[in-house]
């Protein structure tokens, strides 16, 4: 279970002029400007839920994900993920989560994908039997058989994304964070990725938190939507709640953004 209560986070953006002297000065003292990334964010996500986390760029999506994955420490507020405070018990916490950054790769560029998997096996200390059953399952569901022996640099974007997702699930995480998993993919790959995520959730009860700009992702996958804007949760409900007759989901969301002026 994930709970966030009254989480606030502000950034200090360094205002610095160019120049070596300024850079040196900045080592000790910076002129700063404060930006409120999250203001009093609270929500609860039950085990096995699939949640779409949406909002315009700079609304606070990635800050939330970073806090939940233990990369970022909030200024105030409570946050518990499966009974752990992510940033305090980071090492223990991150064993239980999988993260897919859609625009960055975790595969080694020049070696076959399977080698990257084996390295991850060591990183997460996955026992042999678990590793074997998980790779077998992922290979079948994501159709990786042909890809595993190929160096990552030779894969197409869609193929690579499938491998990325598999790489994030090798250690059987209970929670999966997906940051724009379908960005830049062709239609076939998009459908394959969505199907897989759904089956993963049904099969293993994996909690899925999905940030995306692709509303079809949301429509296909999530029953619940969290809308964030200017650092606040503006809406927490199902797709049906917000959908108005006759509109496509893109139009609905665009209208929501307009209503909240975000």
């Amino acid at each position: 279970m994930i709970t966030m209560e009254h989480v606030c986070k502000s950034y200090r953006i360094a205002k610095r002029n160019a120049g070596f002297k300024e850079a040196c000065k900045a080592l000790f003292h910076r002129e700063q400007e404060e930006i409120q990334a999250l203001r009093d964010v609270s929500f609860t996500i039950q085990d096995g839920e699939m949640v779409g986390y949406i909002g315009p760029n700079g609304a606070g999506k990635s800050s939330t994900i970073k806090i939940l994955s233990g990369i970022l420490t909030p200024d105030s507020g409570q946050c518990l993920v499966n009974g752990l405070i992510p940033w305090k018990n980071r090492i223990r916490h991150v064993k239980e989560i999988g993260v897919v950054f859609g625009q960055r790769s975790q595969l080694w560029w020049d070696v076959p994908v399977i080698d990257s998997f084996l390295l991850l096996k060591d990183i997460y200390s996955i026992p042999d039997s678990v590793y074997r059953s998980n790779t077998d399952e992922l290979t079948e569901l994501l159709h990786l058989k042909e890809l595993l022996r190929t160096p990552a640099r030779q894969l197409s974007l869609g193929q690579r994304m499938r491998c990325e997702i598999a790489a994030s699930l090798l250690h059987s995480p209970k929670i999966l964070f997906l940051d724009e998993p379908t960005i830049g993919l062709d239609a076939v790959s998009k459908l394959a990725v969505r199907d897989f995520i759904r089956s993963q959730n049904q099969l293993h009860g994996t909690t899925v938190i999905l940030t995306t700009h692709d509303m079809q992702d949301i429509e296909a996958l999530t029953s619940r939507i969290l809308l964030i804007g200017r650092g606040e949760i503006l809406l927490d409900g199902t797709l049906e709640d917000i959908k108005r007759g006759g509109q496509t989901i893109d139009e609905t969301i665009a209208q929501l953004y307009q209503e909240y002026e975000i």
Partner: protein
Amino acid sequence: MKKYFSFFRLRFSMGLQYRTAALAGIVTQFTWGAMEVLAFRAFYETDANSFPMSLSATCTYVWLQQAFLALFAAWLMDNELLESIINGNIAYELCRPIHIYDMWFSKSIANRLAKALLRSFPIIFIAACLPAPYGLSLPADPGYFLLFLLTLVLGLAVTVSFCMLVHVLAFFTISPRGLQMIFVSAADFFAGGIIPLPFFPKKVQFFMELLPFASMQNVPLRVYSGSMTEAELAKALGLQILWLLLLLAGGRKLCQYGEQKLTVQGG
């Protein structure tokens, strides 16, 4: 000609933007020069009679070398050019009505000039303030200073045309970076980047001075303090011009071959 000048101008103003890097570079170069001067001082104090030139001239050589490092250091190659061959972006350049060689040549010159402009003056200024004989001394006389400027320009042109040759070789090899490293380290050594050419044994020096590398930093840095006789100077100047012409002609020819090879193979 005008279009190459605009490449030059674009690149020059781009180079001027990296002021932070330039300041860090100045600090680095200055320390480097100071260490070099201290090392030469140690050798001088040990055995002054074995010095081929005066300590003051040696220190001046070191400071000028650090000040104009961006002009002559072979390792400061323009990576953009190499990258464009490796990743195939060169295809864009081939679509334009220009000579690739000339464009790259003007870009490289501009890049080096911009870097040197930001870095040289502060180093020259500080070095000139240092007490003799460890600082930068004045040129031998105004005539030598003019010759210094002339050979500086020629030396820069020779350096760039040599680097161009190495770049162009990237058309023909599968691992341009390793090859580049080998050429660069050899060029640095033979040009007097590690120890100035006068410090080599006489026989070795004779051969080294005939190589194109001696026509790079070696000539201007030595002309400045007037430690060359007139005969030596005439020979050095002649060699500079000869090598420049040869390297330019060779580079252009090779570049044409490379382009043809590229278009035939389709990248």
